[in-house]
C-alpha cells in the first residue's frame, strides 16, 4: 500500500523552481532515504509533504489525504522531527512528552502510559524529571524521535536527525528507526551520511529540484557500477 503518492509536484517561489515535476511514492512501513546536496530542494519537498507549503501544481497524497485540500488531516497523521530543534530545553523530559501528547490530542492517562513505556525502552526513566538541556545531544535526539512517534503516526518525517551525533549513538538511533518501521510506521528520512543511506529500504537522490535516481541501495549501486552510495552520490550530484 502506498502511503505517500507524489505526482508531478511543482513548487515555485517566484521565478525559482525548487521542485520540478517530482513523481514518486513510498510504501507503508518503508524506510525511505531522501538524499540530495544542500539546496537541492529536499526541505521544500518535506514541507510540502507535511502540509506546511501548498504546492504550485501537481498532486500530493499523504496518509490518504490530499495535502493541498486537507493539510490539517495530514498533520494529524504524521510526526515530524528536525535536526535544528527537537525538544524544549527548559522543560523536563516528561513535560516535553506531555506537551506533544496533548497537542496531538492524546488523553492524560494514555500519555502517562506511553511515557512510562517509552522511557523504560530508552532507559531514560531515571532522568525523567531532568530539564532537557542537561541531556547529551545523543539522548536528546533519541528522545525527540520517540516523542515524534508518541501519537503513533502512520508516517514520521526526519529532517537530518543525526547530524552532529557520534557514530555509536547514530547506530542506536537507527535501531529505533527499524523498530518504528517494524511497527508499520513509515519513515521518511533525509541525511548527509551516506552510510545511513545504505540502511534504507529505498533511496532517492535529488539534484536541482529533480529526482535523478530512485531505487534500493543495492540496485542503484549495481546499475551504476559503484561500490557505495557515497561514490554514487558524489558522481551524480557533482
Amino acid at each position: 500500500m502506498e502511503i505517500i503518492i507524489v505526482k508531478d509536484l511543482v513548487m515555485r517561489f517566484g521565478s525559482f523552481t525548487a521542485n520540478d515535476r517530482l513523481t514518486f511514492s513510498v510504501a507503508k512501513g518503508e524506510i525511505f532515504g531522501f538524499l540530495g546536496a544542500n539546496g537541492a530542494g529536499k526541505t521544500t519537498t518535506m514541507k510540502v509533504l507535511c502540509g506546511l507549503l501548498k504546492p504550485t501544481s501537481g498532486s500530493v497524497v499523504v496518509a490518504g489525504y490530499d495535502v493541498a485540500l486537507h493539510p490539517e488531516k495530514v498533520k494529524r497523521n504524521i510526526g515530524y522531527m528536525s535536526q535544528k530543534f527537537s525538544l524544549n530545553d527548559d522543560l523536563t523530559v516528561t513535560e516535553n512528552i506531555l506537551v506533544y501528547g496533548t497537542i496531538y490530542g492524546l488523553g492524560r492517562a494514555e500519555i502517562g502510559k506511553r511515557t512510562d513505556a517509552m522511557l523504560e525502552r530508552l532507559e531514560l526513566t531515571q532522568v525523567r524529571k531532568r530539564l532537557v538541556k542537561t541531556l547529551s545531544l545523543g539522548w536528546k535526539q533519541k528522545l525527540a524521535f520517540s516523542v515524534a512517534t508518541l501519537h503513533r503516526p502512520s508516517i514520521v518525517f526526519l529532517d537530518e536527525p543525526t547530524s552532529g551525533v557520534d557514530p555509536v549513538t547514530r547506530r542506536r538511533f537507527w535501531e529505533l528507526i527499524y523498530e518504528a518501521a517494524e511497527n508499520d510506521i513509515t519513515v521518511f528520512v533525509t541525511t548527509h551520511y551516506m552510510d545511513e543511506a545504505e540502511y534504507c529500504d529505498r533511496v532517492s537522490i535529488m539534484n536541482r529540484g529533480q529526482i535523478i535516481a530512485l531505487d534500493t541501495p543495492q540496485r542503484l549501486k549495481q546499475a551504476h557500477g559503484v561500490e557505495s552510495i557515497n561514490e554514487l552520490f558524489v558522481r551524480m550530484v557533482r
Partner: protein
Amino acid sequence: MTALKGFIIKESKHILRDWKTLVILFVIPVALVLIIGYVVSIDVKDTVIGVYDKARDSESARLTARIASSGYFKPVKVITHDAEIAPAFRSGSIRMVVVIGERFGSRMLQNEGAVVQIIADASEANTAQLLSIYCEGVIQSFAAGEDVVVKPPVEVEVRMFFNPSLNGVYMSIPGIMALVLIIITAMMTSLSITREKELGSMEILLASPLTPFQIIIGKVTPYLALATINAVTVVLLGYFVFRVPMTGSWELLFLINFVYIFLSLALGILISSLAPTQMVAMFASLFGLLLPTMLLSGFIFPLENMPWWLQALSRILPPRYYVEAVKAVMIQGSTLEVVWQRLIVMVAFGLIYMAAAVKKFKIRLD
C-alpha cells in the same frame, strides 16, 4: 481545545521557568514608575532661592517670611548686590532670586506701586517658568492680604484645574502605563514568537495539528496575564505612592487598559511576523514603540508645543489615545461618553495590526 490548553500551559511554564526574565518583567515597571515618577515630577517644593532685599523694612521682611512659609520656597541665600546673582545661579546653589524694590514698605503704604522682581535661572526653562508662576502667586496673595497695593492695570488670574499644584506625576503615570504595557506585551510577544522561528521550533508547531491561530493564541495568552498584572501594579503605585487621584470609574479604566493591551499584542504579533530574528524584533520594538511612546504620547513633552508634522505623527500612533483616555478617566473623572472615541480608535488600530499580522503569517506559510 485541550491541545490549545496544553500549549498555553507549556508557554506559561517557559515564562515561569525563566525566573530572571520574570523578575525583570515585574521589577522594571515598578522601577520605571518610581524613577520617572520622581524625576518627571517637577513640583515646586522647598526650592532654594535667594532674596535680594533692597528695602530692608518691616513690609519686605513680612513678604520674605510669607514666601518662606509658603512651602514652595526656601530663602536660603541673602543677596546684597546685583553682581552676586549670576554666579549664584552658575554655582547651582539657588534657582531663583526675589528682588524686593527700594522703599517697598512705604511705596506700598502710599499706593505708589511697590516693585518686586523675580529673576529665575532659565537654563532650565520649564522649571524657571513654573517657579516664577508659583512665586507670583505667593506675592499676589500677600498683596491681596494687605489690601493696599496698587492693582495692576490688567489682572491675570491663573488657576490650574484638575491638577492645581501642577503635579507632574499626574501626567507621567498614564504615560508610564502606556510605556510599560506596550513594552511588556508587544516586545515580549514579538521576541517569544521570533525565538521560535530562530530555534526552528516554529516548524514543529506548524507541522502539528495546531492551527496558526491557535499557536498565536497560545503564545499571547500568558503575556496577556502578565500585562494585566503590570497594569494593576502601575495603577496602584500611582494611586498609593504618588497620590494620583482616581475620580472616574475603575471599570472604565480597566476597559481602556484591556483595549490597549489587545492593541499592543496585535502589534507584537505584527512585528514578529515581519522580523526574522529576535535582534530585529528587539530593535523594531525599541525604536518603533518605545521612543514614540515616550516622545509622542504627550507624557513627557506637551504635544501642543510640537511642530504640526510631529503632532500629525502622534495622531497615527496609538499610545497618545491611551494616555488621553486614562488621564480623562483618572484625573478628570470622565465617563464613557467622553472617552468612547479614543476607545474606538484604539480598537481600530488593534484590528488593523491583527489583520496585517494574520495576512503576513499566512503568506509565510504558503
